[in-house]
């Protein structure tokens, strides 16, 4: 079992190296991309860890958390907040929204025990419908929203993109740092790394608290945990809320780097990419560490950058590479799910 722990990340590393070699990617370009992507995606990946610890599996419902973050970003920009203060305000605003969304998702998970992952996936689709209903139809009709710059020409509904320039790079450039490498100036978002580091530490710290230990016990055997007097249902709810709020913040960090919000699409792929990133590090449905979250983010996003370029170099067009990276993301998730279920079946047979 020990050797297979490294099989997935090593295979991925080989794939990345091959792509880098095939597309003749320069170190400066790759490093620049990685420095940015590490800062902007890590927190979303970290948000997956607590539900895994508590035995809920991969939280496909972080999409709902991302929506909470977007609600906050939209409101913060609408009310004219900007800079680091505006970003802090958005985070503050995202917290109660995330708690409510997380509570709703968690209640759903408690009613669908053993099917949390598929429930989370469908709940994400469902929430997307509600989100559209809200921002495409309720804004400007039922809910007064006077901002011609953000509303569609028809007078209601938000535009497809929301300009987040007021809060762009609010955290990334809090401590301005540029690194000159081979003539290109690379943005090094030091403050973002500090925040990511803080959240890594917070997650690790949480694992060691009394509640973290309870979560671990639940993850290992919910029935034994129940008998031992751990409030399993309540803790599952808490784990989902924590994950959702963290995902809301994670999405805000993502957006402050990107600088534009695709009102109706930005959240859709969040779950898939974060989960695939976590899994390429060798993490499983029932066990994942902070180190794996960071390693996975690095590996997955290397492939993400390299794949279209390698496709262009090898097959003549970028399209092949783009399909390939989507395929890899789905295949990695499928593999992890199959292995997890396979082991569960075997354990059930052995018992």
């Amino acid at each position, binding site marked *: 079992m020990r050797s297979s722990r490294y099989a997935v990340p090593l295979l991925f590393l080989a794939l990345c190296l091959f792509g880098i070699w095939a597309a003749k990617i320069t170190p400066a370009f790759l490093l620049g991309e990685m420095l940015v992507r590490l800062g902007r995606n890590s927190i979303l990946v970290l948000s997956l860890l607590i539900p895994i610890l508590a035995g809920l599996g991969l939280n496909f419902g972080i999409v709902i958390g991302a929506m909470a973050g977007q609600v906050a970003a939209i409101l913060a920009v609408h009310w004219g907040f900007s800079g680091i203060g505006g970003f802090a305000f958005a985070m503050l605003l995202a917290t109660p929204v995330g708690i409510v969304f997380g509570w709703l998702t968690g209640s759903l998970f408690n009613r669908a025990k053993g099917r949390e992952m598929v429930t989370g996936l*469908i709940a994400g689709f469902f929430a997307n419908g509600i989100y559209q209903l809200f921002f495409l139809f309720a804004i400007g009709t039922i809910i007064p929203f006077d901002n011609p710059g953000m509303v569609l020409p028809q007078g209601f509904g938000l535009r497809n993109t929301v300009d987040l320039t007021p809060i762009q790079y609010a955290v990334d450039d809090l401590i301005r740092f540029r690194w000159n490498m081979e003539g290109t100036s690379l943005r090094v978002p030091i403050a973002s790394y500090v925040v990511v580091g803080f959240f890594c530490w917070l997650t690790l710290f949480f694992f060691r608290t009394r509640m973290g230990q309870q979560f671990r016990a639940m993850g290992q055997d919910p029935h034994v945990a129940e008998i031992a007097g751990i409030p399993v249902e309540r803790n599952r709810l808490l784990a989902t809320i924590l994950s959702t709020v963290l995902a809301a913040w994670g999405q805000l960090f993502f957006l402050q780097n990107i600088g534009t919000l695709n009102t109706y699409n930005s959240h859709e792929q969040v779950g898939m990419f974060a989960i695939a990133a976590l899994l390429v590090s060798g993490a499983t449905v029932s066990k994942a560490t902070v180190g794996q979250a960071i390693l996975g983010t690095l590996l997955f996003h290397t492939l993400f950058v390299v794949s279209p370029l390698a496709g262009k170099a090898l097959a003549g067009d970028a399209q092949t590479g783009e399909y390939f990276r989507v395929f890899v993301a789905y*295949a990695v998730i499928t593999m992890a799910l199959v292995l997890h279920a396979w082991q569960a079946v075997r354990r059930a047979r052995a018992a």
Partner: protein
Amino acid sequence: MMDRVRAFVREAGVPRLLIGAFVVALFAVAVATKMNLPSLVTDSIVRVARNGILVLALLPAIQGGVGLNFGLPIGIICGLVGCVITLNFGVHGPVGLLLASALGAGLAIPSGIGYGWLLNRTRGQEMMVGTYLGFAFVSGMSIFWLVAPFTNPTLVWAIGGKGLRTTLALTGIFDRTLDRFLAFTVAGVTIPTGALLVFFGLCWLTAWFFRTQMGITIAAARSNPRFARAAGISDQRTRIQATVFSTVLGAIGIVVYSQSFGFVQLYTAPLLMAFPAIACILIGGATVTRATVTHVIIGTFLFQSILTVALPVTSQVIQGDISETARLIIQNGMILYALTRVGVGGER
């Protein structure tokens, strides 16, 4: 009286009643605003015939104990490969349609066996494994469509001469062949007889199959695996049979869908096709563990009517296209409802 109402509500389920009421309300608005009712009904019936078999494909999987077959795209892809091969040879008309279905079904058998084998080893997570296996298959096949050695100039991109187009028009090949077969018009409503006959025929065939020795064995192994094992029936085997049946119907379903739609859609088009089909069968009254042909027919009719009528009707009341949003909410709300109700109220 109250008891009987309550029993009826419990039997039908609150969401189902809401959706039924919604359909009635939509048609009522259509009548009140003097819309062209016959054309709305025609569109609804066409869409029932178009999507019906894809919904029916879910039935064997539920009856075989595999649950909701979120891996339906696997069967769909097999059918698409059948279509593309047929188109590449330039076979037209009913023969082409038959050849595409036969090729698709032929490919679906080994695919279904493999898929069923995997589902047997991942019990308890069939829905999740099916979903992502389907996703992976669709995205993997996107690369196939791009590099596959198809040469017919009507299929590949004009520039470069390589890689299949995203949509292949069926005009003059087998566009609406079934829909037009024996079609007639009553009171302004056009009935796509051929497509409906095929749909109902396959429904009848499926119902009949579950009365044969093999079908009864499959259903028995689902409802009581231990008893079945004692009787010498391996539920591993019956689950694979059910999956193969479901996958084959999925392949035939997409061929019928494509001829009615007029286009073969490749690449990411099949990615999310399982979800509306699943919503249909659930709206019809099926649960994760039990489904009948009646559920398939009623569910397809209700959900497809909503999708057809919602757009023209709501655009009279409010600006903008709310039908896609409504579809997302109804479809996924229904699936969520079913997922949270397994094991509640003696549904197992």
